[in-house]
């Protein structure tokens, strides 16, 4: 369904600029950003909706993926930075760094970056998850620890000594793989890639949740202890899912950065992660497409409202959150299901966390 809509957008891109169907590259850019959010929401829904792991730190994985990409884009600037230093990014030059710190090594290779986009969030999630799930941290304890994690990372990345540009983060990217980021074609291609990645991720997630492992995961959500007594190592299922989800989030971040042109520690802020949860909840937890719809609807509302009613949009957005919770316990997809009762497994006992 979503993929369809996206195809339409693509086709329209090829229409004449003045035609009714024309979609400006501004909108394409915006849509690309929404789809990154959608991918992020999908990742969170996988762990929260299906496994009951309420991560309040998924923004961290997103940001890590983003930073990995940002580092690459930074290196792509080369000597076109303000100081014209061919090796060092500007912020290092003016803080008198002599040479690239070790963790920047390799950041000029695109393949290395792809690896980092996957490894950085993946390893963090694996280490964090392996520790937490094996020692059976769960429920709010886990949620708050993920929050502490992203909060700590935020503070760390704010520090200029970290070598990631401090508060200002990284901006002023010029090109990616030699293609100028300013050009509409590059943007369109990025958008198409985002669509494809999202579609692929959706497919994989769908396969996971409908596989036997998906059933185990759902069972873990509702009665983790019982799952153990049946012989499943619930911790490793959770670690797997958490890591996979983090990698998805990282990829979303990597796609996001070239499209918005900035990455900075603000992405680590706990509020951002809570927003992801909000998207999923608004859309409908425990349904993959719900998460996607939620992310797009909320982001779109934000874009429009901050433009239309700059001083009162928080009332509207806050009100939306309250109303959706009160009136649509299953989120927006509840509305859709209600209208078009599609054949779908009902997940009644969703209150378990």
């Amino acid at each position, binding site marked *: 369904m979503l993929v369809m809509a996206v195809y339409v957008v693509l086709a329209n891109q090829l229409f004449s600029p003045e035609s009714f169907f024309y979609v400006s590259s501004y909108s394409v850019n915006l849509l690309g950003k929404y789809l990154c959010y959608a991918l992020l929401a999908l990742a969170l829904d996988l762990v929260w909706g299906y496994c009951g792991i*309420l991560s309040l730190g998924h923004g961290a994985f997103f940001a890590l993926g983003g930073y990995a990409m940002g580092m690459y884009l930074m290196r792509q600037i080369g000597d076109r930075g303000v100081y014209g230093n061919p090796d060092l990014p500007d912020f290092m030059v003016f803080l008198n760094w002599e040479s690239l710190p070790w963790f920047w090594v390799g950041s000029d290779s695109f393949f290395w970056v792809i690896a980092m986009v996957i490894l950085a969030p993946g390893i963090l999630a694996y280490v*964090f998850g392996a*520790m*937490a799930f094996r*020692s*059976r*941290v*769960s429920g*709010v*304890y886990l949620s*708050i*620890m993920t*929050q*502490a*994690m992203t*909060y*700590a990372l935020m*503070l*760390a990345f*704010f*520090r200029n000594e970290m070598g990631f540009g401090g508060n200002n983060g990284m901006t002023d990217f010029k090109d990616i793989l030699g293609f100028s980021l300013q050009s509409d074609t590059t943007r369109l291609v990025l958008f198409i890639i985002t669509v494809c990645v999202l579609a692929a991720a959706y497919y994989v997630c769908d396969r996971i949740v409908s596989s036997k492992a998906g059933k185990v995961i759902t069972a873990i959500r509702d009665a983790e*202890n019982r799952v153990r007594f049946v012989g499943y190592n619930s911790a490793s299922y959770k670690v797997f899912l958490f890591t996979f989800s983090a990698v998805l989030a990282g990829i979303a971040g990597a796609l996001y950065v070239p499209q918005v042109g900035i990455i900075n520690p603000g992405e680590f802020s*706990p*509020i951002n992660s*809570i927003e992801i*949860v*909000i998207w999923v*909840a*608004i859309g409908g*937890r425990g349904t993959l497409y719900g998460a996607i719809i939620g992310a797009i609807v909320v982001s779109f509302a934000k874009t429009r409202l901050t433009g239309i009613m700059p*001083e*009162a949009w*928080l*009332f509207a*957005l*806050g*009100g*939306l*959150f*309250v109303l*959706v*919770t*009160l009136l649509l*316990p299953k989120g927006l997809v509840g509305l859709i299901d209600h209208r078009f009762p599609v054949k779908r497994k009902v997940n009644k006992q*969703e*209150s378990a*966390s």
Partner: protein
Amino acid sequence: MFKPVLALFFVIIHLSIFQPAYAQDVVFDDIVKALPKASFRTLPATLDKAATLDDERVATLFARLLEGDVYFHPKNQQVMYVTKIQGERVWIDTLTEQNIAQPSGVRLRKVRVNNRVRSHIRQLLAQRNLSHRDVTVRLQASQSLLADVDSISTKVISSRLEQEKNADIIDVLTTITALKQLQNDDETAQLGALETLRGSLYPEVRVALLSLQRNSEVTDTVKANVDAALAGIEAKRKWFGWAETAFFGISMGSVLLLAAIGLSITFGVMGVINMAHGEMIMLGAYTTYVIQQAFPNLIEYSLLMAVPAAFLVSGLMGVLIERSVIQFLKGRPLETLLATFGISLILQQLVRTVFSPLNRQVASPEWMSGSWQINPVFSVTFNRLYIIIFSLAVFFSLLLFLKKSSLGLHVRAVAQNRDMARALSVKSNWVDAATFGLGSGIAGVAGVVLSQLTNVGPNLGQAYIIDSFLVVVFGGVANLWGTLVSAMTLGVLNKFLEPVTGPVLATIIVLVGLVLFIQKRPMGLFPQKGRAE
């Protein structure tokens, strides 16, 4: 600090109004005449001259200058004091010290003083005040002389010492004498002085000793004695340094406690993931602001009024939220996160709309300001001290209330099994509303306290929400004692780390430590025990 000084000058003003003019008037006149033309550089010299006069009006002039109350007429150069007496603006001529009419048609120019001039005046006043009849004024005067022992002669000090009864002042004065003696090149005098100064904690003493240590001209005996004295001082300083850090930690802990304690009820006991908790704190802080606006003359009592008021405001808001939203989310704890997040956005924006996005100014009452100087290197700020006491008081009254009232039991029963509790005749609706109100009300009270420490603005709540959740969870959800211990632990840990690592790293280390700690105790410091079912 200079309150008593000031009070005295009011007395002087009144006394001097009817007094006949002195013979030296000419001189005082000259000084006053010089004021409009004086610059920051020339002013001190002029004032030095004034200080030598035996004229009561000099003291008034000095006090007024300190307050920044001295103006002059741009045309006729008349110098006058513009001040408020009992809320009324008055104009007083400097020479006659009589009230005059408000000069019309001109904007008065100010006799500007800067920090340097002010501290110069204070130094001059100190010398005058050494024989003041008020003990506190005398003590203060003598203490400010410590910073600049050269400005006073040994003779004056020793004659003062003969008359002085107060032990503290005697201590300061002997220290001053000893410091003066140290400057002698005479070995015996120096040794004698060192004897007196041993163990003294005044920073000036340490500075003097340090410079003596560097001085190559002193004899070896003196040097050895200086070393010993310094070592003793350093040891003491270190000890008090620890005490100070501990105090800082506890005080930070009590702020955390206060911020978190309401949440430990709404979230810990009731299970509502209350993202609007911070905004309840914020409402409490704004209540303080409103109270201060409503009763501008009662600033001293404003906090006492604000505590119940904030409890009511936030509490009622809590009840409202519970009745209008949360009650419909029973059994869906995760959804409360979404709804309360929405509410928190609305409340923030509401405050921005009503009170503007700017921070609001909340004054600190006099009794909350300043510090209790236990010794020259260790003092305890009053506001922190009261806050520690207050937060513990809130904590224990809450504990007692939950223990003694049936509400405590009912909340927990409802939280665990709503239907069953209702089947036992518990009015769950009422209990929910009351509990949420209670938790929110306490958050409001925390807001009153925070208004004394930090900004009162729309973002106030956001700044505390994460810490609050951390504290509650670290302590073990639904365990009030856990909240206490966890708040204190986090506070103290942070403050002991900070000097070593700097505040940024300290926070990061504490957070990482927390994440690791939870691995050892997956249910917080004080987990709920029992068969997991």
